[in-house]
């Protein structure tokens, strides 16, 4: 029997990700004072079992607004006296129950973007601009201590390579129970019981609660991490390359599990990966990043089917397609820029076969077209029809012209 209620009460009837007016709980403003309910622990001993998954929404929240809205996020690293512009003016939104994929080459800023949402950055990094609104509340204006309260309870993370992301000297069950005890005030026994139930949910026998991480296989460790991420019942789960370290069969199982949980629990998911095929399977929308900026973003089918941005096109060319005939895999000549001295204008212009003069000087504006695809490229200026401008096949394949 599932511990989670059927989340259809969150009105997923019809269009995904829209909240029904009726599901808004009326909130006592005095209790909230403009903060998210993440910091209101249930009275000790009262475990959140069975019942309705209550998500108290602040009165200020707009029921039509997306769950998470990121605007102009900019994050810099300080490296040996120089500034690395890791994330530059990145914006996106996440609807309730939606899965957004963030893709791009290594070093394009996808992980940094995700970590910036909760300011989980190393000490030499700093979010220098933008806003991150969860339920309408800007997290970036919160102090570190206040932000701590939202971690895991509203947004949790599944890191890449669970072997290192799990404490090697602590039992897996204890690690899953830990946030419930520390952050939600559950008793040790109640939390342990919940941890067992979570493990069952992700397909691990409850008895493995006592196991240490090194005693589990790679796939099971990743499942355990997923169970841990679910512990406090978050609104959003960020998966940072959750399947990259696994072999293909296990990868498929994990993705299936994530999809399953998404349906059952109405989770919203941000999936970060450099593997485009993974995104195609699990995500509703995809955002392609390059050198710290957004290149293209939109529904998966459209972005993959009719890619617009030259980078997207070349990226897709680089992935083999099982169904199509043999062809030469494309490569993108050159390498990503050094973000300490990013190129002026469009950061892709040094490698872009369609680069024009304006690309070297002006940052391309982000334009959203009618089919809800957003592109940042001078080939698609504001006011244009937004039709895809495919690169010549040879060029897209990276062959010398």
């Amino acid at each position, binding site marked *: 029997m599932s511990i989670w209620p059927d989340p259809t009460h969150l009105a997923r009837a019809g269009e995904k990700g829209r909240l029904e007016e009726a599901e808004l709980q009326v909130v006592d403003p005095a209790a909230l004072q403009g903060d998210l309910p993440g910091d209101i622990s249930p009275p000790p001993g009262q475990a959140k079992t069975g019942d309705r998954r209550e998500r108290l929404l602040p009165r200020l929240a707009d029921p039509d607004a997306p769950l998470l809205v990121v605007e102009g996020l900019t994050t810099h690293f300080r490296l040996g006296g120089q500034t690395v512009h890791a994330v530059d003016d990145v914006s996106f939104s996440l609807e309730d129950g939606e899965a957004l994929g963030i893709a791009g080459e290594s070093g394009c800023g996808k992980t940094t973007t995700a*970590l910036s949402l909760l300011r*989980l950055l*190393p*000490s*030499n990094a700093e979010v220098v601009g933008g806003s991150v609104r969860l339920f309408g509340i800007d997290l970036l204006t919160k102090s570190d201590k206040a932000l701590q309260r939202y971690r895991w309870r509203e947004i949790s993370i599944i890191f890449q390579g669970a072997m290192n992301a799990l404490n090697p000297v602590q039992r897996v069950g204890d690690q899953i129970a830990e946030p419930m005890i520390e952050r939600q005030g559950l008793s040790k026994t109640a939390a342990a019981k919940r941890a067992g139930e979570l493990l069952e949910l992700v397909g691990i026998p409850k008895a493995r609660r006592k196991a240490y991480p090194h005693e589990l296989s790679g796939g099971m460790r990743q499942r355990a991490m997923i169970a841990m991420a679910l512990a406090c019942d978050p609104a959003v789960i960020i998966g940072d390359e959750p399947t990259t370290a696994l072999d293909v069969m296990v990868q498929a199982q994990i993705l299936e599990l994530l999809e399953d949980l998404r349906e059952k629990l109405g989770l919203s998911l941000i999936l970060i990966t450099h593997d485009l095929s993974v995104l195609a399977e699990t995500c509703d929308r995809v955002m392609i990043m390059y050198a710290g900026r957004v290149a293209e973003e939109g529904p998966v089918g459209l972005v993959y089917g009719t890619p617009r941005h030259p980078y997207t096109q070349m990226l897709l060319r680089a992935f083999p397609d099982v169904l199509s005939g043999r062809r030469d895999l494309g490569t993108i000549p050159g390498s990503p820029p050094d973000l300490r001295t990013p190129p002026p204008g469009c950061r892709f212009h040094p490698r872009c076969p369609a680069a024009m003069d304006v690309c070297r000087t002006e940052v391309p504006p982000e334009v959203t077209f009618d089919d809800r695809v957003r592109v940042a490229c001078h080939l698609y200026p504001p006011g244009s029809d937004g039709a895809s401008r495919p690169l010549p096949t040879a060029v897209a394949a990276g062959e010398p012209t």
Partner: protein
Amino acid sequence: MSAAPLTVEGARRARWRLRLRNTRQFARRYATRRDGMVGAAILLVFAALAIAPTLFVGPLETVTTATGAPLEPPSLEHLLGTDEAGRDMLNLTVHGARVSMVIGLLATVITILLGAVIGIVSGFVGGRTDQVLMRLTDFFLVLPTFVLAIVLAPIILDIVGTDAEFFSIRATLFVIVVVIGLTSWASTARIIRSQTLSVRERMYVDRARVIGGGRGHIMRRHILPNVINLIVANTVLVFAGAIFTETTLAFIGLGDPFSPSWGQLLNAAQTAGAPGLGAWWMIVPPAFCVVVVILSFTLVGNALDDVLNPKAGLRR
């Protein structure tokens, strides 16, 4: 790289140019380490004192050429006071620098040679040899080597005879050098072995490209250059340890009463009852020098290690 002709001469010159560039880069990076620079400066001072002590304080005062009255506290005449035989402490301490540093240097050479050879051979050859050598190394790591040194020294002295001389160094000193070397190599061997193992991993890819050349050749020309960075950083730290051990051994009485290493001076102080008498000037100068030199070596060693063997910086 400029188009150097593909000759042996051209290749050699290219290698030297590369080494020069690397050295300059290294020097620049090292200069940013304040602790390393301070340590290096201090060591230079002591090296100067060790090389030419007579230049600074005149010849070594012996019991017969003592210039002051016994146990005089510091005064204008004797800046650091005198010992129980009336010898000027400043004179003794500066000359002590030479003895301590020379012993330290020689002992370090032995330690590094032993440790590096065993480490590289063990790591590279692997198999049975590796197992046996590692057992031996672990044994020496567990052993209270200091006690071993204390036990070994008199035995060797007995065998050799106290008056013998090796390379114009008195037997007592020579024995200390040998004993320190024999008992300190184990941790060096361990460190170098693990580095050799990781280099060997990389080597297996390159080995296909190594045309001819037996194991010895590979060890010398391929493994050694990659391990040398580690050896250099380790050498400095071993030097610190050698001075530490020499000082302690001399303090216990295994030193040479005629060559006043700092440990020997402290031994003399202890035997003369200086602490109880409050004769701090017999104790502080050599003690201060010992601590400062060991500290400087440690700072330099740590700085070298950071510069030569950078580990991944701040991760998540």
